[in-house]
């Protein structure tokens, strides 16, 4: 090996130059992400990609199925691009409140991308988390398809709908607009003395103290959901609940209880008493197995399916 190739790790000068340029480009890209996240805007290359898709210079991307595409087209809805938002959040003082803050940050970033794509709405929004075990933190990711309505100007504040395009179009026909995602989260410690969980007792009795505490945690989470909803619409559909009640034992003190509850829903703006503009046809489904006619479609918030990990409060 010549001294030159030894110095450059076995690369030719041209290869070394290429590697240097590639590494500089990587560093620039990372720096651009950092600045963008800090300032609450999009990196130039992301905005460029979305604007190109919006102007029809590059192909549109959509999470819609063929059936959804057909219905979207017949209702004048055009897909532009898949958009996303991510916020990796570290829980310090509250795991529960961290969830609320993390999802809200991710949602506002999703809207940023949708606005850059000149969209009126984002449909089929899924809340996801990625199973990477990085202690006391979690990523909050929302993904969806930015769409534009024929004849409407781009919206500076696009509507975020967790329902698929198929149901989005159906709701719009009925005058109902899914407008966003509402989140309510509450946690509380209970360290009152006394035997709250009936340990050592042989009799049947309701655990009123603990029950009231748990009820209160849930009620406050729902009240927060209502507050979150009121800012955007007048109703919430398709709730996802996630609640946990823990007892933390301590040798030299009475046990403490922790209750936490998170509730997530799709916010709708639904005027009362608007008729559905379609007749309904009664059918008898001869299918023995599960059929789309007899089972509800699965959609919406998937992030809390099977959550069982513990975190710091």
């Amino acid at each position, binding site marked *: 090996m010549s001294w030159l190739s030894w110095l450059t790790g076995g690369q030719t000068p041209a290869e070394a130059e290429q590697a240097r340029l590639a590494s500089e480009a*990587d560093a620039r*890209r*990372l720096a651009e*992400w*950092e600045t963008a*996240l*800090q300032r609450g805007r999009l990196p130039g290359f*992301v905005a460029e*990609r979305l604007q190109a*898709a919006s102007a029809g210079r*590059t*192909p*549109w*991307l*959509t*999470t*819609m*199925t*063929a*059936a959804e*595409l*057909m219905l979207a*087209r*017949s*209702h*004048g809805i055009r897909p532009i691009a*898949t958009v*996303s938002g*991510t*916020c*990796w*959040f*570290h829980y*310090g*003082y*509250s795991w529960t409140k961290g969830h609320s*803050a*993390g999802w809200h*940050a991710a949602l506002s970033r999703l809207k940023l991308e949708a606005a850059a794509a000149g969209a009126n709405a984002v449909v089929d929004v899924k809340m*996801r988390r*990625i199973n*990477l*075990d*990085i202690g006391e*933190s979690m*990523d909050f*990711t929302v*993904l969806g*398809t930015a769409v534009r309505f*024929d004849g409407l100007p781009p919206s500076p504040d696009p509507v975020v709908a967790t329902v698929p395009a198929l149901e989005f179009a159906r709701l719009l026909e009925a005058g109902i607009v899914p407008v966003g995602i509402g989140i309510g989260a509450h946690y509380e410690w209970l360290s009152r003395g006394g035997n709250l969980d009936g340990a050592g007792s042989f009799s049947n009795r309701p655990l009123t103290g603990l029950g009231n505490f748990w009820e209160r945690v849930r009620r406050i989470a729902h009240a927060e959901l209502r507050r979150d909803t009121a800012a955007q619409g007048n109703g919430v559909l398709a709730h996802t609940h996630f609640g946990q009640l823990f007892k933390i034992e301590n040798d030299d003190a009475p046990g403490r209880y922790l209750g936490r509850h998170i509730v997530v829903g799709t916010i709708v703006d639904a005027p009362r008493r608007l008729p559905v503009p*379609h*007749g*309904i*046809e*009664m*059918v*008898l*489904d001869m299918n023995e197995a599960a059929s789309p*006619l*007899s089972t509800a479609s699965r959609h919406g918030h998937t992030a809390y399916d099977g959550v069982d990990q513990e975190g710091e409060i």
Partner: protein
Amino acid sequence: MSNTDQDLPQHALERLKGLRSQGHPGGIFTSDFSVNEFLLVRKAGFEPVGLCIGSCIYHVGIQYGSWSKNQELDVLSQAMYHARELAMTRMREEAADMGADGVVGVQLTVKRLAWDANVLEFVAIGTGVVHAEGSPAFKGPKGQPFTSDLSGQDFWTLLQAGYRPLEMVMGSCVYHVAHRGFMKTLGQAGQNVELTNFSQAMYDAREIAMERMQNEATEARAEGVVGVDLHEGNHVWEPHVIEFFAVGTAVVPISSEPSASKIPDPQLVLSVNS
């Protein structure tokens, strides 16, 4: 169903018989279609020819990122992309050998093999179909069979919406998510804060995967990509390494886009089963 064949022009019947006898002596086709899919594919004017399979067992090279750096792991990204591409190409070759115009209902899976964590098996399976009247207008890019992960039902619906599939497009990015330094971890103890370098890693990796998929669609001269699915996987790597994989079907209008009013309005039905 047999009546449909009777109505076909003679040249189409001859062509079909010829196509079938190449890969399947005796005119027997194989397919993983359900009955509903089969009927709807036929309703859309296509006939199944045979199950097309492409597989690739791939040794994934070893590459570690810097402990504290967000970066794409090129060796792994290329391996995941290359192996899937090989499986898809082999499936498409099998379809071309059968004389198929395209492959629908493609399932692309990755399996881990028991004897070595770095050996992965990539399999692409779908049903090769031909246009019953022999129309050449449904081929994919460069006269090759089109490929699509749409089910038989979705294939019918897509054609009704005025589009035809070109090819499955994908983008893959394996990315190393940086570790936090001890001092940084200590500084954030007890606070609710965003870990921006991790957020940034997730964003960047997904952005790269989507960009690649979009480039593939542009190359295929598609108007758009339908059914985009973003998978996040870890496969066999260390905990801070993740793969973003985007896959969808690139589509193009059949002739010109139909006006919205031409697309039939579906009827609402209520199942009285229960």
